[in-house]
């Protein structure tokens, strides 16, 4: 048997603790794309919640820890645009002042990828041809679309797996999560989510897909009986390529 390419999964804390099925789906997708998946056991959180709340020291500790854990991984894949942004855009300057970590933080930034980005651009994965699966609408999570510039990738994979994309009026409008913001200012957060869900319902698509666990849980928290089912990109792609 030919030795397969290897990749490490950073499952992220929300997926680990709350929606592990997203991690399971990510592993299966990576294997279908021809990769052997490693899961370093010490991993916990990338530190973003602390970074966003201004607790820089705590964020730095968790960032350094993550750099250590994934030091030897050939590549790291995350089923979250937001956590990928933290590693790629924030780690290099967050750890720039620490000579033990500065270089390795930049190296980790270069080898970390959001799942759909990795599947398309690194793995060159071609999903098997699929029968039509009906309409979906895609929510662009903020960090993923604005800071990583990823919006075409998840849409392409959805289209390739037989989904028909129907766009919301403002697909890149924030869902209202914003980490601690969602409990610091719940009135505004919930109003934002309600607007998002209304826009999703207006598309008529039975399925609302996002690539970020934070957005997913936020939107599910206010989803009603009538609106679309809200799913993570990984689970949708995994089901469609069985």
């Amino acid at each position, binding site marked *: 048997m030919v030795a397969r390419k290897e990749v490490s999964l950073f499952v992220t804390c929300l997926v680990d603790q709350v929606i592990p099925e997203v991690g399971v789906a990510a592993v299966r997708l990576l294997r279908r794309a021809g990769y052997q998946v490693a899961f370093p056991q010490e991993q*916990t959180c990338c530190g973003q919640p602390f970074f966003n709340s201004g607790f820089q020291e705590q964020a730095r500790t968790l960032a350094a820890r993550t750099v250590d854990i994934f030091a030897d991984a050939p590549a790291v894949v995350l089923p979250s645009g937001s956590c990928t942004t933290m590693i790629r855009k924030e780690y290099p300057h967050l750890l720039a002042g620490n000579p033990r970590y500065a270089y390795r933080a930049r190296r980790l930034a270069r080898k970390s990828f959001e799942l759909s980005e990795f599947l398309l651009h690194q793995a060159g994965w071609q999903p098997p041809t699929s029968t039509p699966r009906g309409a979906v609408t895609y929510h662009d999570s903020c960090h993923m679309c604005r800071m990583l510039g990823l919006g075409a990738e998840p849409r392409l994979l959805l289209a390739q797996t037989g989904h028909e994309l129907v766009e919301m009026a403002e697909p890149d409008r924030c869902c209202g999560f914003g980490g601690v913001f969602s409990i610091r200012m719940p009135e505004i957060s919930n109003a934002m989510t309600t607007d998002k869900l209304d826009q999703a319902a207006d598309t008529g698509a039975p399925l609302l897909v996002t690539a970020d666990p934070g957005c997913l849980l936020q939107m599910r928290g206010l989803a009603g009986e009538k609106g679309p089912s809200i799913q993570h990109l990984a689970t949708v792609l995994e089901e469609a390529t069985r």
Partner: protein
Amino acid sequence: MTVTIASFRKEAATAVGDAHLQVALETATGHFRDGRSEALAELPDAEALRDHLKAVRAATIARLADHLETFERNAIAAGAHVHWARDAAEAAHTVTELARARGVRLATKSKSMATEEIHLNQALRAAGVEPVETDLGEWIIQLAEEPPYHIIAPAIHKTRDQVAALFAAETGAPPADDDIATLTAIARRELRQRFLNAGMGISGGNLAVAETGSIVLVTNEGNGRMVTSLPPLHVAVIGIEKVAPTWDDAAAWLSLLARSATGQPLSIYTTVITGPAQEGDVDGPAEVHIILLDNGRSRLLGTEYEEVLQCIRCGACLNICPVYREAGGHAYGSPYSGPIGAVVSPLLFGLENYPALPHASTLCGACQDVCPVRIDLPRMLLALRAEEVSHGLASPAETVMEKGAAFILAHERLLRWGRRLLALGQLPLVAGRQLQLPPNLNPAQERRLPALAPRSFHEIWPELEDEDV
């Protein structure tokens, strides 16, 4: 007044619960958003022009003192008087002293955020001068005794019938109709006499052009021209960051200002004021005074916040901001609301007075996307949050929780055992995959918080590792 998380939430909750207000906000900001997109698309290369203006603004701010001195020299040469004001009190005092020395009792004003910032109307009234706002939106909120709701559209939140009621109270007679033409005609009639009687006209300045010592005003109603040309005395209050070295720079600035703000290629009126009326001019004031307002701005030079001085006050970030669109302008407790307000209010007026504002954002980044000079507002909100923590302004409860959570997350075994306990402990509250918390105990209010999964990914992994591929 301190804008706390609690006060911000209270104001925002009122706005969120007001269906009329939400429709008005969404209609107006939507109109501005669409206008902006269309107006930028008309340019041959809007992105290149934004980069150019950004470079101009950055270079100007980097040598701000030089450009201000050039401006002063040329403004004086054109016959204007230039005053430097360290802070709000000094600026307001300069205006009231000018009024007192000339016996002015009535002052007309064109829309100016700088005069809102220095609370000039209160200072004028205290000095026995009646200020009259002549921008329609500003006049409406002056009658309502409210601060502006939006940087460029101060009365964006008022409905026609609310305006009609305010006009009725002011004129003593209910308007014949509450259509826009009737209401505008009332404003025109009421304000006309004040324009003619005022001893002083007060304006802001959208920009100041150093090479000719000129002030440029961008307006849509023509009131700016009346204010700056009818009274014998014109006073302009302008922030020191609003200087354009040359007219070429001003051209780039103007071609993005109205496009980003209202979606107009240019506003209806672009007024250039270079000194007082000269011999042979048919109108214009005998005296022009320009007050260059610092009020915390120079303190930002050379800091990680210097970039915010590049702002041209177009308001595009308010129109796109998903938080502003729900919370409205008053929650910010400052003349500057929305993302730019969340950054400049703490910076200019003190973080201790605006502790809520750095948190009034999901850091979605839409503001930076639409900013004509691409100011990295999310980065500055993060820096302000970090400043709060490092200065001990974060609440003790939050500090304990954040530090505790970070400690647990830095110790994988602790997390593993802690989550097992929690996963068991939460069971009585779990329904589906969500927690059913009593409403008064749910920090997310009506939003259902997710429950911990029965088994974590860590616990599932051994089976997954063996899974047949």
